[in-house]
């Protein structure tokens, strides 16, 4: 037997072994790449580009925040801080802002930052030829819309005042405007931009660009002359790792520095590695928009009944591993304008039935609930909602589609219900009211429930114009309360993000807003 075995195996060894070795020798022999000294972060997908003008998603935004600065910035706690502008003033009307540039800041290629760069950066974002897709943070500037439409050759609301200051005149007062300028798309870029800018960016940020292997990794080196103090590590690597369990494996083998704990692993990690874990309440409601323009959902009593019929605390505990805080409104509890005294809708099927009878649906009706096929956890939440609504006579059909198809249907208003979450672009209650409930935001703007109430609309606009912070927050609380009573959503919860930091890493924390973590204080303390 063994004789036969050896002979047969020999048949293949010579030529093929040689071939195999040649082949392997041809592979990139950079197996040592995993041994980089600096911290290693990850993204799920390749960023769109490293050009701030194309920054329309979280991944791209996080990379832009490493390389570039805006006039303002957010820190990890979501506070608005000075950045390229070290001070700014607003006139009493809140319509005109003057931003003074920090002195002595240069781009990574040595060119000094001047006020004209700010203007040209913004024109670039607004220019339709850029194909960026995110212009709304700059549209409040007077004349920006005309320029974006090609009706004007300049934006009259941006005024360059010498090299050191730039003034913005807005179409109407907007208290949150300085926060808009902290978004990645409003980063300041050199002008003219270098060739192939999206692949070889030059910014002012804490990290300089070194290399980008698509779908594989990005490499950054510290900017030693960063105006905010040079980073503590020499280099930062961002790997592209699409699969959650692979990311966990990479983390456990010490090849990435921090990782979001995979949902299914929550209990295990909490028991085995409690000292690695970091929690942070997210600025992100998980919710089900109830299409206020379709069938029985037009009646507020029906929508309230649905809120009473869903046992949210139980779903949060069982399906979501308790990783969240119940929502009694759309403003996250950590933001001004959130009312901690407001009680969530009680789980009360009797009340739900009474409301349905009062609305004229004693025998219930049927609805569709859309979910994204790739999001397993959201799918389980959908099933739980389906089961609980059945108990009060509402038959729910779950429609599972890929994210893109679902997004299109939701935006067109073709869905009764969908299970969604909403990520903050800027940490302010306005980000949870204007896009989600103003009638000007129907569909693509973010108002997926098509909630429409003239009083709410005007209150939101009043709040946007209100410069006084506490008055503004009082207004937000009032608006949130008004909307909450009308129940345009099933209010679910605000997730608490759960991350693990490798024991060899120091100085990292979960940022409350995606571009609030810039990795300058993170360092590797022990060999991995």
């Amino acid at each position: 037997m063994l004789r036969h075995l050896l002979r047969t195996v020999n048949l293949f060894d010579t030529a093929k072994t040689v071939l195999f070795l040649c082949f392997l020798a041809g592979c990139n022999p950079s197996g040592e790449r995993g041994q980089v000294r600096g911290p290693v972060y990850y993204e799920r997908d390749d960023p769109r580009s490293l050009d701030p003008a194309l920054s329309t998603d979280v991944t791209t935004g996080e990379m832009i925040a490493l390389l570039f600065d805006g006039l303002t910035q957010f820190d990890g706690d979501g506070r608005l801080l000075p950045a390229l502008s070290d001070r700014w003033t607003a006139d009493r009307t809140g319509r005109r802002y003057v931003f003074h540039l920090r002195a002595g800041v240069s781009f990574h290629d040595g060119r000094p930052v001047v006020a004209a760069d700010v203007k040209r950066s913004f024109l670039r974002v607004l220019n339709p030829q850029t194909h960026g897709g995110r212009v709304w943070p700059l549209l409040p500037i007077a004349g920006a819309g005309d320029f974006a439409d090609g009706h004007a050759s300049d934006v009259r609301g941006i005024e360059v005042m010498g090299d050191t200051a730039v003034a913005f005149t807005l179409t109407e007062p907007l208290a949150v405007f300085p926060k808009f300028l902290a978004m990645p798309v409003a980063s300041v870029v050199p002008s003219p931009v270098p060739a192939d800018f999206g692949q070889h960016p030059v910014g002012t940020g804490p990290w300089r660009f070194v290399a980008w292997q698509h779908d594989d990794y990005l490499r950054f080196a510290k900017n030693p002359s960063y105006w905010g103090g040079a980073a503590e590590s020499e280099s930062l690597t961002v790997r592209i790792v699409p699969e959650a369990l692979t990311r966990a494996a990479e983390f456990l083998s010490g090849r990435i520095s921090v990782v979001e704990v995979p949902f299914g692993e929550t209990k295990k990690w909490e028991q085995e590695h409690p000292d690695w874990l970091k929690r942070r309440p997210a600025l992100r409601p998980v919710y089900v928009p109830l299409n206020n323009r379709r069938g029985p959902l037009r009646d507020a009593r029906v929508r309230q009944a649905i809120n009473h019929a869903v046992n949210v605390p139980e779903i949060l505990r069982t399906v979501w591993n308790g990783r969240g805080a119940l929502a009694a409104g759309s403003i996250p509890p950590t933001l001004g304008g959130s009312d901690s005294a407001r009680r969530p809708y009680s789980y009360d099927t009797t009340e739900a039935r009474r409301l349905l009878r009062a609305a004229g649906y004693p025998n219930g009706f049927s609805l569709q609930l859309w979910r994204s096929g790739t999001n397993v956890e959201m799918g389980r939440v959908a099933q739980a909602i389906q089961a609980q609504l059945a108990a009060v006579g509402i038959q729910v059909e779950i429609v599972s589609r890929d994210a893109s198809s679902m997004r299109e249907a939701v935006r067109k208003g073709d869905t009764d219900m969908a299970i969604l979450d909403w990520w903050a672009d800027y940490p302010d209650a306005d980000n949870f009211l204007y896009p989600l409930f103003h009638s000007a935001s129907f569909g693509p703007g973010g108002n997926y429930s098509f909630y429409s109430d003239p009083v709410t609309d005007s209150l939101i606009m009043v709040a946007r114009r209100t410069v006084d912070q506490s008055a503004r927050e009082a207004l937000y609380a009032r608006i949130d309360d008004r909307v909450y009573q009308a129940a345009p959503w099933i209010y679910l919860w605000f997730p608490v993000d759960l991350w693990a930091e490798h024991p060899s890493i120091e100085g990292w924390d979960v940022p409350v807003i995606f571009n609030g973590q810039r990795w300058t204080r993170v360092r590797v303390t022990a060999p991995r």
Partner: protein
Amino acid sequence: MLQLLGRRLLATIPTLFGVLVVAFLLLNVVPGDPVAEMVGERADSATIARLRGELHLDEPIPVQFGHYLWGVVRGDLGRSYITQRPVLGDLAERFPKTLQLAGAAMLLAVTCGITLGVIAAIRPGGLIDRFSMLIAYVGVSFPVYWVGLLLILLFAVALRWLPPSGYGGIAFLVLPALTLGTRSIAFLARMTRGAMLDVLPSDFVRTARAKGLSERRVIGRHALRNALLPIITVLGLDVGNYLTGSILTETIFSWPGVGRYVLLAIQKRDLPAIQGSILFLSVIFVLVNLLTDVLYAKADPRVAYD
């Protein structure tokens, strides 16, 4: 032979044109909006309308197809809506990596699969036969996804012999190649065993033994060579599996190849990227089929093409 190749290559043009038409039409029928994916979660209708215009998405479909076809004829697959990079460049950057992975998986499949099959066929019903067929059975049944994660847990997390994922030297190639190749090993082993069992009782094998040839020459030169045709067929067909299977394998192992590019393009409804990838993969597929036919003739002189 050259004439044959030329004729065959010409015949691929209508095939590829058909692929282009079908892909284009299907992509315009499926729900989902590329502009919505570009602008992200919050956008104003004016911006969306402007972008649609800029990308010619508001033109009639035949006109759009004309634009696209004209580009393809000139060797331009267009630019990705999302990244704004040329699709051809993106594919050219990723394809060598997919090829590397597929090549390694194929080598693994050929060496292990055929070896297992031949050994099994020498002593049908024997211990090795039963063992290798068990492996083949198991290998065919396990889903790629599961095998991949299991390999990562065992070799990267528990034993720490290999990196869990990523692109780099040989160490990075082992686990994905094994994952991608498992199914093929199993399938090839069963195929080879069957073909060998058909050939081994033949007269010419008996003659070869009677001539006093060593068992090694009998099996390797005479029996296996005659059993090769079905094996080549399976290998040719398998190339399709390597290309599609690479989507899962590349995702699990963070391998920066074409599979992941296609997947992301589909998720983002990045029409130029999807169309370009489909066309590119079709070309590869057609070429591999051609190569398979040529190999037939090489392996068996009785196969002649006129």
